[in-house]
């Protein structure tokens, strides 16, 4: 599946570790949450970057103590109608996570802007849509009643806040969000 980040498809350089497979000697590793809990000692000592696949049935706080060592968190969407990971993503950003927050599973162009707005900055997407569709989808709405990247915040624009209302806001504006 293509990996969408920063408005284009990029190569996924992460090594997925399944089940009990041994960790490689080097490289950036992506482990399931259960494995993270089981083998934290070994994983924390790994020379490359560490990422985790975090199920949407878990509480965001369960990752809190690991956040300093994590560079990637993948949040799967088991069905595109299952919106739990929008809140989990938001909570992880509020907890201070500033690495890559990736949506996986059922991601459609019509959801892209929502996901960007709650703090996701990378997406495993179905390969039937070209890049241009995703670029358009990221900019679908130019205004929002919420303070989010990539859209003018209506309330900020009305009441003015220094630097808070930017016309040039890039939907892929660097994470994390303010608050």
């Amino acid at each position, binding site marked *: 599946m293509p990996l969408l980040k920063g408005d284009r498809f990029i190569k996924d350089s992460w090594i997925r570790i399944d089940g009990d497979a041994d960790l490689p000697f080097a490289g950036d590793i992506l482990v399931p949450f259960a494995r993270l809990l089981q083998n934290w000692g070994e994983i924390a000592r790994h020379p490359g970057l560490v990422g985790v696949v975090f199920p949407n049935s878990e*509480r965001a706080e369960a990752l809190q103590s690991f956040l300093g060592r994590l560079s990637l968190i993948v949040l799967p969407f088991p069905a*595109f109608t299952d919106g739990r990971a929008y809140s989990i993503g938001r909570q992880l950003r509020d907890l201070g996570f500033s690495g890559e927050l990736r949506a996986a599973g059922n991601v459609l162009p*019509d*959801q892209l802007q929502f996901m960007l707005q709650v703090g996701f900055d990378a997406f495993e997407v179905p390969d039937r849509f070209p890049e241009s569709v995703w670029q358009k989808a990221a900019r679908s*709405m*130019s205004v*929002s009643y919420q303070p989010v990247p990539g859209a003018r*915040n*209506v309330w900020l624009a009305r009441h003015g806040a220094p630097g808070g209302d930017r016309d040039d806001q890039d939907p892929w504006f660097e994470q994390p969000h303010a608050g």
Partner: protein
Amino acid sequence: MYRYDEFDATFVAERVKQFRGQVTRRLAGELAEDEFRPLRLQNGVYLQLHAYMLRIAIPYGELSSKKLRKLAFIARRYDKGFGHFTTRQNIQFNWPELVDVPDILDHLAEVEMHAIQTSGNCIRNVTADHFAGAAADEVADPRPYAEILRQWSSVHPEFSFLPRKFKIAVTGAERDRAAIQTHDIGLHLKKNAAGELGFAVYVGGGQGRTPMVAKKIRDFLPEADLLSYCTAILRVYNLYGRRDNKYKARIKILVMELGEKRFREEVEAEFPRTVHPTAELDSKELERISAYFAPPSFETLPKISGVFEQAKLDNAAFAKWARVNLAPHRVDGYGIVNISLKPAGGIPGDATAEQMRVVADLARRYSFDEVRVSHHQNLVLPHVKRDDVFTIWKVLDANGLATANLGLAGDIIACPGLDYCTLATARSIPVAQAISRRFADLERQHEIGPLKINISGCINACGHHHVGHIGILGLDKKGEEFYQITLGGSSSESASIGTILGPGFAGHEVADAIDTIIKTYLGLRHDGETFLDAYRRLGPKPFKEALYAAPQR
């Protein structure tokens, strides 16, 4: 009344453009139906029994003459010349074609209207007391809060894929005319001892398969915390609401399964985390919005209107209507006109394009250009000089809009039912019509007194039958329609869920059954006792006996 600024206008315009693109992609095969469905639902487009249905948002039930005329235009141009006002203060059109919907939405955008989030697993229309800003007993106007909640909830990126729909209602008086205790979040706007504004917050009310009265989780939430607190509630629901079973997915089930105490703890734990940096901004925005709801420039008038009093003496029909359909206004010399959309034998809540134009004109001329939709499926002219009421009544009367049955047996609330709705198990409108014809005699309705009859065509309870004094639920028995009767529900501040009386009835038996129930009440009531009070005193027993002891059952 709230007016869009450039941002609101841009928001709606972009949303319509987005949906137009989605419709195009759907028709071109780039989107499958299961991908398109949640998108069209969030733009108010249902696929019903006979056709698509478009549900248009009427935020907290408030309309201007311009908006109402536009709805009349849409009824004529894109539909069959009528519309249906709903139990959530919205309007539904039953026959739009999918290909026309983007155009309809463009027309609506011209008058600052839309169909955003009137369906789907998202936050729906925020409803409020239909007498807001006018009622004599109002403590504070709920509309600015309904408006800020509307904006806050519109296309909220975090809360667009909830386990299920989410409904919020706000009231600003002790008498609850917004049925807040049967909503997912119910907000009672009030003042504390220090005179500060805040809310009692209720969560987990609802109807449907498992009707419940909401639990109060906060006695007094300061107004500045409203959005942060609601965000906390929504986040707890989004994270922990059930997603395994459609019939157990509302927040009321979560509140029940966690227990009130644990649920409240979850919300209170989340609340400090959701104090987003715009808390100060919320206050500024609220202040800006409130300016739109400043009272109109009322004239200083005497309490008694000579013209009005004389007209009542001269015209008995008018006097009857005024007694029932005119509600007290907080300003001397003014009144609240209630327009019943329940003529005897008619379809509850329906209005023709012509009728909509008539009401729009009356609103413009006599009610500071304001007209409201109530969740009882009637219309309201909130600020009318008593001097003008007779003139208005004559126009209403000439257009089939002067039925003097507000809150009486003929003022039936009914969902569209199996005649229109794919979810329905039985028809509700013919039942309403049969009962309405049976009680057509206004004298009899007045004799019976206040009586709310609610009819739902299926277990989803869109007719709110659980909170009817008499509730009727349409079911299916081996492919045929079949009706269960409940008694003793109430959507007021002393909310209660009705109890089932016994075995159900065939469609043609329902009017008789209601007649028997009412005769029983009339025979047993104390002086001045309403139906609901009598039921609460007597319990179901005498009604059961009367209904089921009779030989033909």
